[in-house]
């Protein structure tokens, strides 16, 4: 691990100023990903700005529009077990509990989960070329072992995936990320927060280098009963998704009134296509309808060899998650989906 200086600002403004004074520095809160990356020499920040105790960012509060604000420092465990969230946004609670372990969820924060880096093994190994680690270095994953890699939205420069479960649910729920920088605050919708790699895979998000995440806002709850988060992984706990699906439906008179669908484990961001959701609207929740939505969501999917199976798997999980959501969510099927 490199040497670094350590500062602990006590306000958002101080934190932002500390970052402006050391652009290569990193904010640290739970540290579950950053410390890991520092130990692997993937991250070598000259300064750590510990925002873990900045007041005002560690609460879940009601918003005037009926939504909820989750402070950037609220841990994943607290979000998952928060009563308001469990009641109004069960999809989010379920997604978080499908990820990591109790120890990690106790330390990892909402802001940190948004900003976690890919788990691509080549990214984690500094002896391998990686465009995400070093711009223009090349990609060792392409043509390498690609079982965990992207089938959607990849580029010739990077085929990594985003590993978060929480973000897949936040994308489906159309959460909004609130950020602060030297020029003030702004809001970034989840759909625009994470980037596809293109020719700049070194940039994971649209967050400015001088900005920090202060909260995540959930809009007023619209999907409380017919939701499902289904995650397929190599073992039933503590593993990253091979494919995951967040499905949320609103049903009326046997028809789908509104739908949200997001895929995890398949791209460098939670994968949504509003057209797929539109294709569900007004239809009966049956397999033919779900199949059409899957066609649209998976349009353009392309494997890298080892991960070709993900295309068929993603379709199967989509159909199952939609059927489960239509049947009344995960609880109707006896607890968390563990496939």
């Amino acid at each position: 691990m490199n040497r670094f200086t350590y500062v602990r600002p006590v306000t958002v403004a101080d934190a932002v100023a500390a970052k402006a004074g050391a652009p290569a520095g990193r904010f640290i809160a739970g540290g579950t990903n950053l410390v890991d990356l520092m130990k692997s020499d993937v991250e070598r920040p000259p300064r750590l700005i510990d925002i873990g105790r900045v007041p005002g960012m560690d609460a879940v509060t009601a918003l005037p529009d009926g939504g909820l604000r989750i402070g950037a420092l609220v841990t994943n465990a607290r979000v998952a077990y928060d009563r308001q969230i469990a009641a109004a946004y069960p999809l989010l609670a379920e997604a978080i509990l499908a990820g990591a372990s109790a120890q990690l969820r106790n330390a990892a924060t909402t802001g940190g989960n948004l900003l976690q880096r890919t788990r691509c093994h080549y990214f984690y190994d500094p002896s391998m070329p990686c465009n995400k680690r070093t711009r223009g270095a090349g990609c060792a994953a392409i043509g390498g072992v690609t079982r965990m890699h992207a089938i959607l939205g990849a580029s010739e420069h990077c085929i990594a995936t985003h590993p978060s479960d929480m973000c897949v649910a936040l994308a489906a729920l159309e959460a909004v990320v609130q950020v602060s920088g030297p020029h003030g605050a702004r809001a970034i919708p989840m759909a625009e927060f994470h980037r596809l790699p293109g020719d700049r895979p070194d940039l994971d998000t649209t967050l400015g280098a001088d900005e920090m995440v202060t909260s995540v806002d959930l809009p007023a709850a619209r999907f409380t009963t017919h939701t499902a988060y289904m995650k397929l992984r190599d073992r039933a706990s503590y593993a990253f998704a091979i494919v995951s699906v967040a499905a949320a439906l609103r049903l009326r008179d046997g028809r789908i009134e509104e739908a949200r669908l997001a895929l995890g484990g398949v791209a460098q961001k939670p994968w949504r296509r509003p057209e797929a959701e539109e294709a569900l609207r007004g239809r009966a929740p049956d397999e033919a309808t779900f199949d059409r939505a899957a066609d649209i969501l998976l349009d353009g999917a392309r494997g890298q060899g080892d991960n070709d199976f993900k295309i068929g798997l993603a379709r199967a999980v989509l159909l199952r998650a939609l059927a489960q959501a239509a049947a009344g969510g995960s609880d109707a099927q006896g607890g968390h989906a563990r496939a």
Partner: protein
Amino acid sequence: MRTPVQFRHNGTEAAVFADGGESLLTVLRERVGDTAPKYGCGQGTCGACTVLIDGAPHLACLTLAETVQGREVTTAGGLKDGAALHPLQTAFMSHFAAQCGYCTPGMLMAAKALLDRSPRPTREEVVEAIAGNVCRCTGYEPIINAILAAAQMPGPHRY
């Protein structure tokens, strides 16, 4: 850069100088002298270093020492009360829940956090609570049974 760090350690005050980047695990083992938490993978995968910070299980290997300033850190070394073992320790012994023993201090702390929160857990809750703790000897069954047994034991300890 060396940073002074003070925290509660198993009920007493600890004050050390930590090197920048030093983990809580290194500080506990090498500066405080508590070798109960173990170094396994060093990257948050195995759970052998699990300690409680303010009552919740955390991975000491991924926790920078500076960040526990003023916090309460509890390790397996702080479980027993004088000479009296904690019910979890007794149950681990009677159920042969330790073989090589390397995962045991982390398992105990993950289990303690569970019982503190949920004194009568279901088997499924126990399995979930130790999902972040790897054991390569026992096949987990004796550990799960020990935790369930400890939950039924009377004892001086408040979970």
